[in-house]
């Protein structure tokens, strides 16, 4: 399902303008990352899709249907939503949390539980955790439950609001890989909000870098943004300007090591890259 923002604006009653004038098309079955610092309006934009926030002006369309015309409760039940800190219901066991939306939609208890157990397999959770309470799980496990719960009603759209922001880097990397796998298998339209450039470039087919007020600094594939930053702000934000992403190759003890502008090692050059024509090694053969 495609999502389109058409000239949306959001001013809150206290006068702050979270989003000034935002337009964007999110193609069906792709992952779009809204990237920006806190206060850039990315979460506000995300919440316009399932009407947790209604725009002050402009329209949001899902498959060319204005969401303002759809009952918000019905709309939310067919859009998956994953938030930071998982947002699990602390008084419901894991399986019941996952089965929430099917139960709301009137699916029988046994069928909903069976579906919840299947989803636990899908997101890589052991079924033995089904009767635990959220507080008895690790942060990473809680996020997996959050993802399973969002998938339970088989939504075509998945909204993710910094879902991996509160877990440690190792678990985060694991969850990111898991999401990439899920996306391949499930073919959903994903809108993902983050302030982490690496995460945005890893997950996004399309990355939309936002400035304060929801102004688009640049939108494009990660490669386009890295190759052609539209402004100093973009170059700065993605790290190109600081040299974090301008890498060169140095030979250390006979091994070709990729280092950044400050000389910090970023990785080792793979064997294929050495022999490939036009590879980075050519200009560096000083011996």
């Amino acid at each position, binding site marked *: 399902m495609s999502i389109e923002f058409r000239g949306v604006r959001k001013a809150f009653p206290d006068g702050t303008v979270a989003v000034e004038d935002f337009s964007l098309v999110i193609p069906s079955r792709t992952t779009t990352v809204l990237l920006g610092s806190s206060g850039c309006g990315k979460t506000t934009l995300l919440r316009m899709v399932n009407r947790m926030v209604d725009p002050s002006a402009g329209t949001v369309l899902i498959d060319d249907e204005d969401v303002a015309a759809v009952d918000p409760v*019905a709309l939310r039940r067919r859009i998956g939503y994953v938030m930071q800190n998982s947002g699990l219901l602390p008084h419901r066991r894991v399986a019941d949390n996952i089965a929430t939306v099917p139960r709301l939609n009137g699916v029988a208890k046994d069928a909903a539980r069976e579906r919840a157990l299947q989803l636990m397999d899908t997101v890589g959770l052991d079924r033995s955790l089904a009767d635990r309470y959220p507080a008895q799980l690790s942060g990473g496990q809680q996020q997996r439950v959050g993802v399973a719960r969002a998938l339970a009603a088989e939504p075509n759209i998945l909204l993710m609001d910094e879902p991996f922001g509160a877990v440690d880097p190792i678990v985060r990397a694991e969850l990111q890989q898991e999401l990439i796998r899920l996306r391949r298998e499930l073919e959903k339209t994903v809108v993902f909000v983050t302030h982490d450039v690496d995460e945005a470039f890893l997950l996004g087919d399309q990355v939309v870098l936002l400035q304060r007020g929801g102004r688009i600094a640049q939108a494009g594939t990660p490669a386009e943004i890295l190759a052609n930053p539209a402004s100093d702000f973009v170059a700065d934000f993605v790290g190109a300007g600081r040299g974090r992403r301008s890498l060169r190759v140095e030979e250390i003890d006979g091994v070709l090591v990729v280092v950044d502008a400050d000389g910090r090692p970023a990785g080792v050059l793979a064997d294929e890259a050495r022999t490939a024509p036009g590879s980075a090694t050519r200009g560096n053969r000083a011996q």
Partner: protein
Amino acid sequence: MNWVAENAGLILALAVQHLRLSLLPIVLGFAIALPLGYLAHRYRPTRGVLLTALGLLYTIPSLALFVALPVVTGISVLSEANVVTALTIYAVAIQARSVADALDSVDPDVRQAATALGYSGWRRFWAVEFPLAGPVMLAGLRVVAVSTIALVTVGILVGVKSLGYLFTNGFQRRILEEVLSGVVMTMLLALLVDLVLALLGRAVMPWTRIGTPAPRRAAP
């Protein structure tokens, strides 16, 4: 102790009567406090006015309330209904604030998540906010229960029988055991109801019993 043994039947009958008179205000008080507490929680401007006004009700001396109420309600001063009404007012005065505090204590992230999942407002309240506010509401309810059971005894001054009868009767007849048995039985009743409420809370809110890891034993 002779007196107690000889009058066990009377004491028991009064205790049952006492319990009956207490339970109604506790239950009614909670039912009325729930929407009032919700209003105070939901609409910030009403909170101060509403909760202060209700709190003031609690400062009215009980005997004065027993006598003043019939003027408003038209119920006889000497009737059980009059005592139950007065005690319900006190229960509401305490419980409304506890309900408002309890609803305030629900994690806003969880509330947001419930909305995002597709709970309608009404359903979200009963399925998410109400149970999660449970522990704080229960704490308030236990205070109300003990306070109500103590206050029921005052009803004897307007002729409504409870364990309070043992106070006045024992005092008039100078039977110390009778007065003491009234005091002890009232306390036992309060403890019993408190215990039942606590156990009930554990049974219906099983998630509150987990999450606190067992204290680690110090290394030998």
